[in-house]
Structure formats: structure tokens, C-alpha cells
């Protein structure tokens, strides 16, 4: 399998993807906020606003709350690094990523979980009630989302006979017809729900809430200020970008480069940007119509997505 070979070109591809996600993630967030603003009849702050926020945060003093330890200080960095690593592994521009054989779907999921766990520990480390509350809720949702993810992985990997991302995506490129099969549609739906849950979007969590008691992700990071907060926000945006990119590559891989030639890469880059922008617009538009679920309704949502992924698995056996 060509995806197994690692060479300088593919490593460069990975580095390119990391930088791309680093730079593009805030833009994605900006686009979503802008779309929301327009749909609410507002003018909107422009898609560059998240970058302005980050620049500003980098200029502010770093605050170390009394009584916090290394867990609190290193968590944002670790979270961003894990997400960046996932960005290096997931085939976004090209299926020839630097990890090649190492780019395993389960490993990527585990990396993102590690990032979430690090932030949860930071939230607990502050010793404030809100930090613990956020950590507890975040971990509950992560734990319940896990089965859906792996079941969907199961459905996708079973057909290719591998959980290696490049191979799955490449297979998708080769037989486009498969993408229209019930199995992959169901898996797409299930994974979509999980992406919402894992990135703390509506209806699972409201990223724009100001009321601590309704917070999940925000509550964990209430203590961060300045550059650390910049890292946290960058990490959240990157997480969203990587997961949306992963979703796009799995279920709409058209246009992704299967080689490392400059032309193919350029095409892949353009197509990726287009896909992500489209997904962002759709997501933001959808959020206008949604209200946040009660925390204890979220398990219902995740159970539903789990059922869908089980259906995907069965369908992948019995229908194709």
C-alpha cells in the first residue's frame, strides 16, 4: 500500500497540514461567528476577529492562580500539541501523511481524548467549583461518545480491512459509490453527532454561554488568562477543524491528493478549504435553529448516535 511509505515529502505534507490547521482554525471559528451574526440580523465582527483576539491575548500578562500546579500550567500546551499531532496524522490535504502507517484512526481518537483529559485535569487542579464541574461534565460526555466513535471506526474499517486512515480515505476516493451506501451514510450521521459532542457545539454545549451553570467546556478554562487562554482557544478551534476535516475526508474525500505532487497538493488544499468553509457555514446555520439540550438529555443523543453506528456496522456486513 502506497500509504505505508514515509518519505520527506509526506513528512512535509504533515508539517504543512499542522501549520495550515494552526493558521486556519481561528479563521474557521471566525466564519462560523460571522454566519451566525448575519443570520441573527447583526453585522458581525468579521472573520478575522478570532485572530485579533488571539493577538491581543498574546500581549497580555500571564496569570498563575495561587494554588495551581504543573497540571494547570502545562495542560493548554499539551492539548494544542495533541491536536496538532492529530492534524499531522489525519489525511486532510493528501493521503500521504508523514505518519503514514502510524496514522491510525484509533490513535487519532485517543490523541484527541488525551487533549480533553489534560484540560479536565487542569480544571480540577484549580480547585474551584466551576473547574471541577466542567471537568466532570466533559469527561462524562467523552466517555459516552467513545463507543460511537469506535463503532463507526469499526463500520468504516471493516470494509477496507484496516483502521489506517490513509487507506480508508484512499479507498473512498477509489470507489466513490461506496460513500453512498447506507453503511457509510449511517456512519457519517453518527460521527457527525459525535463531532458536535466532542467539540462542545450546540446542542451538547453552548460555546457562547455566559452562565457558568450551563457550561461544559468553558467552565474548565475560566481561570486561564493571557497567552494560556490564547492556547486554550486555539486548541478548541483546532479540535473543531481537525474533526471537521476528518469527517470531510472520511465521507467526502473527493479532490484530496493521493500523491505528493505540488499540483495535486494545491488542488487538495483548495478543495479542503472549500469543504471546511462549507461545513462551517452549515454548522453555524444549523446552530441558529437549535437549543442546548439538558445535560441529562445528552446521553439520549449519544445513545441514538450509537444505535446509528451499530446499524452502520450491521449494514456494512449485510448490504455490501
Amino acid at each position, binding site marked *: 500500500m502506497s500509504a505505508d511509505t514515509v518519505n520527506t515529502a509526506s513528512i512535509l505534507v504533515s508539517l504543512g497540514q499542522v501549520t495550515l490547521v494552526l493558521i486556519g482554525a481561528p479563521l474557521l471559528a471566525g466564519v462560523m461567528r460571522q454566519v451566525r*451574526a*448575519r*443570520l*441573527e*440580523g*447583526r*453585522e*458581525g*465582527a*468579521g472573520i478575522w*476577529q478570532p485572530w*485579533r*483576539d488571539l*493577538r*491581543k491575548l498574546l*500581549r*497580555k*500578562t*500571564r*496569570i498563575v492562580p495561587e494554588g495551581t500546579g504543573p497540571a494547570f500550567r502545562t495542560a493548554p500546551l499539551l492539548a494544542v500539541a495533541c491536536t496538532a499531532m492529530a492534524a499531522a496524522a489525519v489525511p486532510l490535504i493528501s493521503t500521504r501523511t508523514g505518519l503514514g502507517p502510524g496514522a491510525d484512526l484509533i490513535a487519532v481518537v485517543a490523541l484527541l481524548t488525551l487533549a480533553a483529559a489534560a484540560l479536565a485535569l487542569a480544571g480540577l487542579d484549580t480547585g474551584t467549583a466551576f473547574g471541577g464541574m466542567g471537568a466532570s461534565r466533559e469527561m462524562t460526555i467523552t466517555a459516552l461518545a467513545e463507543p460511537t466513535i469506535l463503532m463507526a471506526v469499526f463500520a468504516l474499517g471493516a470494509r477496507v480491512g484496516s483502521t489506517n486512515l490513509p487507506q480508508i480515505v484512499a479507498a473512498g476516493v477509489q470507489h466513490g459509490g461506496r460513500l453512498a451506501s447506507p453503511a457509510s451514510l449511517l456512519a457519517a450521521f453518527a460521527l457527525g453527532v459525535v463531532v458536535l459532542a466532542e467539540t462542545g457545539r450546540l446542542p451538547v454545549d453552548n460555546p457562547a*454561554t*455566559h*452562565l*457558568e451553570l450551563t*457550561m461544559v467546556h*468553558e467552565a474548565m478554562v*475560566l*481561570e*486561564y*488568562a*493571557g497567552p494560556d*487562554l490564547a492556547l486554550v482557544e486555539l486548541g478548541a478551534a483546532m479540535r473543531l477543524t481537525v474533526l471537521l476535516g476528518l469527517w470531510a475526508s472520511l465521507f467526502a474525500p473527493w479532490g484530496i491528493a493521493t500523491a505528493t505532487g505540488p499540483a495535486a497538493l494545491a488542488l487538495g488544499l483548495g478543495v479542503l478549504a472549500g469543504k471546511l468553509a462549507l461545513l462551517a457555514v452549515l454548522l453555524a446555520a444549523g446552530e*441558529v*435553529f437549535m437549543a442546548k439540550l439538558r445535560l441529562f438529555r445528552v446521553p439520549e443523543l449519544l445513545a441514538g448516535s450509537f444505535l446509528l453506528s451499530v446499524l452502520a456496522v450491521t449494514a456494512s456486513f449485510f448490504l455490501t
Partner: protein
Amino acid sequence: MISLLRKIRGVGRVAEPAPPPPAPLPPPVAQRARALGGSAQVRCVDAGSCNGCEIEIGQAFSPVYDAERYGARVVASPRHADVLLVTGPVTVNMAGPLRSTYEAMAQPRLVVAVGDCAIDCGVFAGGYGVHGPVADVVPVDLQVPGCPPRPEAIVEALRRVTGR
């Protein structure tokens, strides 16, 4: 859902066209505001107001006046905030919390006193529960007079901070 879509299309843009940019800030404040570079996270503290100013602040961030388009956003924690929006005369009980809120913010930080009460205790001046104007507790960089101030005035103050 369809009806909502129809409504969205029907209502269209309700944000009023942006008025001309306001006068720049006085030098010392301006130098700090420049560091913010067009982005101001706002934390509101009600130090004992009659909630008239709160309503107007809410209006300032409503779709009609849309302070957000100038890069201002309300946040949930003073750690995340650059601008402290204080309303009302500082009551005895709120003096401490106001000070600690200010302390919790990372530099550079600005304080905006919104409403006459915040500037000089307004009608509450000399009240037994009143500690004093905001300036007695935390250094005030910007004042928005009015009882209550019009949303435009609040938006203008925020624009002077973000410089947009």
C-alpha cells in the same frame, strides 16, 4: 423551522449602519487601548445600580446596535476580560468584589464607568449604603455619562477602546 427561515429572510439585517468613528482616546489610555488591537473582551459589574444601565448595555449588544461588530464581546470571567464595565454607585458590599474583579484581570486592562451613578453616585450620593463613585475603588479610564446612557453612547465608548 421553515417559518423561522422565512422570518430570517424577511427581517434581513436589523443592525443600524455604523456611525462615523468617535474621537480617539486621551494619550495614556490610548496607548493601553492600542495594545488590545481591535479586540475587547468585556466584563460587566453591577456595583449597585438600579439596572437601568444594565438594560442599556444589553441593548448595546443587541442586534440593533451590535457592539460586537467593533470587536467587543461580553465574557464570563474577569480573567478573560480586558474592559471592566462598571455601573451604579459602588455600595459598601460591592466595593471589595469590584476591587477583586479588577485585580483578577490581566494587564493591560481598562475600566469604563457607565452612567451618572458610576461617575458621581448620581441621586444616591450620600446614601448610607453607598461607598462612593467607581473612581474611589478602581482607576477609571473612560466615563459614559447619562442616566441611563443611551446605547449609542456605550457603543461609542467601546469603539474608542477597540479603535474600530
